[in-house]
């Protein structure tokens, strides 16, 4: 696997590699990401991971994170509790 770049980002390493169709990378134990199809502006990836490992699309995760943070602020504001208490 040709390593194109290796950057230290906080406590993590950022690894940049070139992969062709049907090539894969392996992360730790039991996680594999394979390039299934390459389009003009997108790639299709096949992800193999142990069942206990959650795999999310970044933008979906971020969207839900923002919702949860807003949701926890409802009860964090004591003026609102009387209106919306269970």
């Amino acid at each position, binding site marked *: 696997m040709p390593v194109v770049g290796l950057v230290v980002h906080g406590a993590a390493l950022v690894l940049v590699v070139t992969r062709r169709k049907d090539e894969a990378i392996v992360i730790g134990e039991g996680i594999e990401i394979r390039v299934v199809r390459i389009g003009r502006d997108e790639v299709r990836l096949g992800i193999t991971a142990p*069942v206990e490992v959650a795999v999310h699309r970044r933008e979906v995760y*971020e969207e*839900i994170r923002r919702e949860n943070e807003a949701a926890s602020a409802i009860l964090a504001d004591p003026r609102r509790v009387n209106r919306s208490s*269970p």
Partner: protein
Amino acid sequence: MSSTPREESSAIRLSTQFGEFEAAASHIITFPEGLPGFERCLRFVVLRHAGPSPLVCLHAVDGPTASFLAIDPRRVLRRYQCAVSDAVRLRLGAGPNAFLLWLTIITIANDDELFVNLRAPVVINPDRLLGLQVMPHDALYPLHYRLELDALARTGTDGA
């Protein structure tokens, strides 16, 4: 707002917006991944109102303060499809016929309106005391669904 875990006793004392509670170990649900935005909150309890309200409070036992109002999505939308993938079922340690508890989180509370996140429900397996927030990428339900408070009152558990 802080919860005070006590190692020496099986019950955990909680200080919440709704008062002080003792949560028995048998009521504490582990979320192995926490919730998005609250990844360090790994244990929660579900606080229920003694009265007719269908709203519950999902309250973090440890980690940063996290407390959510939530409701069964079927109380919001009668035909809400409560289906989980095989992967989610496995992660919850739930068999094909296991009873699962479903909660959707109330994300916006304006003066007279409440909105729930129907897209990413929390699913709990009460048998194994395991929970997680489902994040489907094929969005079947809206992120902000307006709660019909009148309809909710009509379906109150004791009709009150």
